[in-house]
């Protein structure tokens, strides 16, 4: 491996855990020079891993090229290549990993495997200036309440079954709603929920600092099929119930850890109603409320690039022969020596 200079300059990050393929480029002090995202939108149904992986392979060179153009740098300027190593969908992860390995090998720069969940926290901290928050990370694949303690992000609460975003997505599909690029199911449901007036009782399941969404989803879908309620009221009730649950467990973690900041990150963080709720509990406990900007709420390459840069600056790299993807790589298994 050649090192061009002692101080790394740029890190390129590849994100491909699920339906988005994205490439970001970060400088060593966290200036994001590029963040190009190509979203795979299924014709119908949920994400088919193989179809999504095919989308990633097809779009990769175009997205990479666009990232270099926006960043106005050349491939030879890169100090490291980072990629999301997990958790996520196998075929999607492997596509990103293959591209990352090839690039790192060809450019003779170190490869850095990044945990997708850590990256969502780090980009949130970078963009909001949060230093030591309780983080609520909510997306299509994850629902986690975490906070830093002794070298790692510790998981205080999480879903016991499906992710919050997944719950909303499945409900939206059952309701026959359509998503499109730039308007995912979450945004569609949010828009409809604004017109909701009546709160329909739905199962509210909080267990300790964990939550469960599968029963809520089943109940909401059954009510939908009964045709006894307006879709607006059901979307509203689903959101209110699910968001109240994650807000409650976040408040529990906040009271437990006594941290002074709350960070909302991940795809569902873009929802205004959820932002309002989490902000309310932050204020209640005199903590600063931070929410990731929407372009970094969704899965993105910039967060991988930045987290890869942090790791690389702390001497962490991933030899190619150890760069297998980790489908169920838990947040609390990752050392984060850059966090003090």
């Amino acid at each position, binding site marked *: 491996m050649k090192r061009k200079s002692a101080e790394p300059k740029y890190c390129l990050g590849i994100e491909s855990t699920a339906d988005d393929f994205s490439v970001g480029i970060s400088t060593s002090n966290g200036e994001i020079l590029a963040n190009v995202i190509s979203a795979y939108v299924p014709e119908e149904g949920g994400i088919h891993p193989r179809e999504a992986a095919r989308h990633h392979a097809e779009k990769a060179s175009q997205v990479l090229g666009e990232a270099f153009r926006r960043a106005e740098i050349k491939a030879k300027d890169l100090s490291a290549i980072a990629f999301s190593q997990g958790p996520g969908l196998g075929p999607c992860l492997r596509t990103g990993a293959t591209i990352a390995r090839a690039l790192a090998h060809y450019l003779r720069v170190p490869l850095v495997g990044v945990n997708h969940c850590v990256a969502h926290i780090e980009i949130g901290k970078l963009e909001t200036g949060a230093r030591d928050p309780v983080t609520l990370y909510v997306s299509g694949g*994850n629902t986690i309440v975490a906070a830093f303690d002794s070298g790692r992000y510790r998981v205080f609460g999480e879903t016991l079954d499906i992710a919050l975003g997944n719950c909303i997505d499945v409900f939206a599909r059952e309701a026959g709603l359509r998503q499109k690029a730039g308007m995912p199911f979450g945004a569609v449901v949010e828009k409809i929920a604004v017109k909701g007036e009546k709160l329909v009782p739905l199962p*509210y399941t909080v267990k300790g600092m964990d939550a469960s969404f599968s029963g809520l989803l089943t109940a909401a879908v059954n009510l939908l099929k009964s045709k006894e309620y307006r879709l607006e009221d059901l979307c509203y009730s689903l959101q209110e119930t699910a968001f*109240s649950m994650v807000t409650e467990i976040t408040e*529990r973690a906040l009271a437990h850890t006594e941290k002074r900041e709350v960070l909302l990150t991940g795809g569902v963080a873009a929802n205004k109603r959820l932002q*309002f709720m989490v902000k309310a509990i932050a204020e209640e406990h005199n903590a600063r409320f931070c929410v990731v900007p929407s372009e970094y709420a969704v899965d993105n390459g910039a967060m991988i690039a930045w987290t890869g840069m942090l790791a690389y600056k702390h001497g962490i790299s991933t030899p190619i022969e150890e760069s297998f993807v980790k489908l169920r790589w838990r947040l*609390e298994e990752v050392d984060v020596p850059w966090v003090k």
Partner: protein
Amino acid sequence: MGEVKPYLMKKGAEANLYLTRWHGKKAVIKKRLPKKYRPTQLDERIRVYRTIHEPQLMSEAKKAGVPTPTIFLVDVNETAIIMEFIEGTQVKLLLSDITRSKRENICVKIGELIGKLHEKGIIHGDLTTSNMILNREGKIYFVDFGLGEKTMELEAMGVDLHLMKRALQSTHFRFTEECFNAVIEGYSKVLGKEKTESVLEKVREIARRGRYVAERREKA
């Protein structure tokens, strides 16, 4: 409600705890305050439900041989409970600063208490070391039954133990393994090997339940 002006002792996540006196005894008022972030209808439903169920479970736990604060008064309209004040230390605060054998003793005792609850179908619902108080005589009190329920289902017992393990992982990550093993030792003393093994199998199943999309799809 009390005899002297109550003083705010702790601002919890879902309730404020006030220190007061009740007929000459030191007492705690647990008041569930309205949460402005959630719709009023949902908020009232949750607060009233928990205010009614928590004292019921606490007195049932006491009957099952698990020390809990004695309930003095339940005020559903105010969503407040007045209960005995337990003089002691939260297990969370002392677990790291004691010897390994003392830590094990405490965890075995905790396991026995959980076993006694489950034997009678009482699910605590929030088993963390912050919800356990060790008094001077070495008695461990369980508090905060607000998320509890009454059921004989294996699933609920599994979730209860899973939560205990998760709490150890997040707060006592240096001793998770030894503490959890000691808890299981105590649990097994009360419920027997066979029952304990079936609950532990449930705990493993719960942990395996997909948190990530990939695993769930493989099973589907």
